[in-house]
């Protein structure tokens, strides 16, 4: 069973994502901020991380993504950034941080599932 780590500060959005993923067979883990998400990534070793970009605290999604992709132990983890910011420069910032995919809110749950399936299948 593929492991997915959801890192998102909005509890409602986390629930929506969890509900979406529960239609398929995934082992789901959750974190509410970037620092916790990074710690959980090391502990859980997920196949894929869903990372909100704007989160309160010391690390935002871009910083977590950058650290994951620069950590030899974690760089294999696929990262999907979730964000309300869909401008070209935001997508570029995601690419620079090493993200594998960039979904702009409000995203479709179907699109989310498809993206996760595609990335975890090619992993």
């Amino acid at each position, binding site marked *: 069973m593929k492991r997915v780590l959801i890192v998102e500060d909005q509890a409602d*959005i986390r629930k929506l994502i969890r*509900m979406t993923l529960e*239609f398929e067979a995934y082992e789901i883990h959750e974190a509410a901020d970037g620092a916790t998400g990074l710690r959980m990534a090391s502990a859980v070793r997920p196949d894929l991380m869903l990372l909100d970009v704007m*989160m309160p605290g*010391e*690390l*935002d999604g871009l*910083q977590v993504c950058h650290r994951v992709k620069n950590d030899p132990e974690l760089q294999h983890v696929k990262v999907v950034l979730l964000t309300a910011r869909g401008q070209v420069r935001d997508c570029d910032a995601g690419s620079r941080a090493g993200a594998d995919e960039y979904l702009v809110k409000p995203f479709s749950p179907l699109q989310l599932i498809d993206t996760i399936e595609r990335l975890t299948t090619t992993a």
Partner: protein
Amino acid sequence: MHPTLAEILENQKSGLLWVSQDGIVRYANGDACSRTGLAAGGKLYDPDLARAVAQAAISRISGAVTAPGRPRAPGEVIPDLNCRIVPGLSKDDAFVFIRDDNSADPNVAFNNLLQIIRSDLREPVQNVLSGLNSLDPEIAHRAGPLMEEVREIGEVLDKLVELAGIWSSGALLASDRIELWSLLQQAWAEVQPQAVKRDIKVRFMAHDELANLATLYGSEPWLRRVFLECLESAIRAARHGSSLLIEHRQLGPRALIVFRDSGVFSGATQGIEMSPLKPNASGRPDPKNASTRLGLQLCRHVLSLHGGQLREEIEEGERQFLIDLPTGAPHRTSDPQIDIAQAQRYASDLAALMARSRRTKA
């Protein structure tokens, strides 16, 4: 209904009705109940809304109507509600998202006052200044103190307009991704000529690797303005030829910009409480003091809308002036609309998701 879905619908910040094609309410969250008086089992009373719901359910097309709501108290005006109707989870239902009609501007009096300040005070002062600038040099020399006073009044009015302009605007609700160190350096580049002119040396120090400093989300232009105000104030207060130390500290989820032993806003703060407007020798309020106080107010307001604050601390007898900001996501007093949009998107795709899941499992 899935309990999580019920919780999400109930926690929508706008009113939400789940209505069947015939106008019978299947579910109404608390906000929708209070705005419309409708509850589960009730029937839509507005024909336009009922028609839009039927159309959304049958033709699966979203729509929008304005419908009368329930007065907040007996005798009050019936509010107009902006209703957005989206097709529901099956072929015979729809969702109605309800918001107040915000077209009326409640700040008319405030805007009128601002208009008076702009057109009846600031513009004449600017005209006087430009007139004084074109005076014969000898007369201009004699009018120097007068020009200086008019210029200071102009500065106060400029700041007042600026402060009033952001007080209730959405300008501060921006979500720019901001690196504070870089922003501080940008502000410094603007202020540096003033420091050079007074032979004041400023040293900046970050207490961590720059790459490790947290970012924050907010209004970059307004936070730059805060830094400018504080840097200018520090330079004004510093002795000719002295040195200033400005530090960037990271304390968990907070970023601190510390002006060490500087006189930032020293004429306007007493433990950051506003001091009374001090009269000058002529017995009139000192415009310099007013300008500083307005600058301080501007900074306090911008920072408070970012969840931050200005603070003063005494460390080993030194007065430290601190800009204290939370790092990370934008500080908001209300939940962002994106949650609602995401829930709407989820609701519209839920049926397709369930069908897909059934296909996969079969």
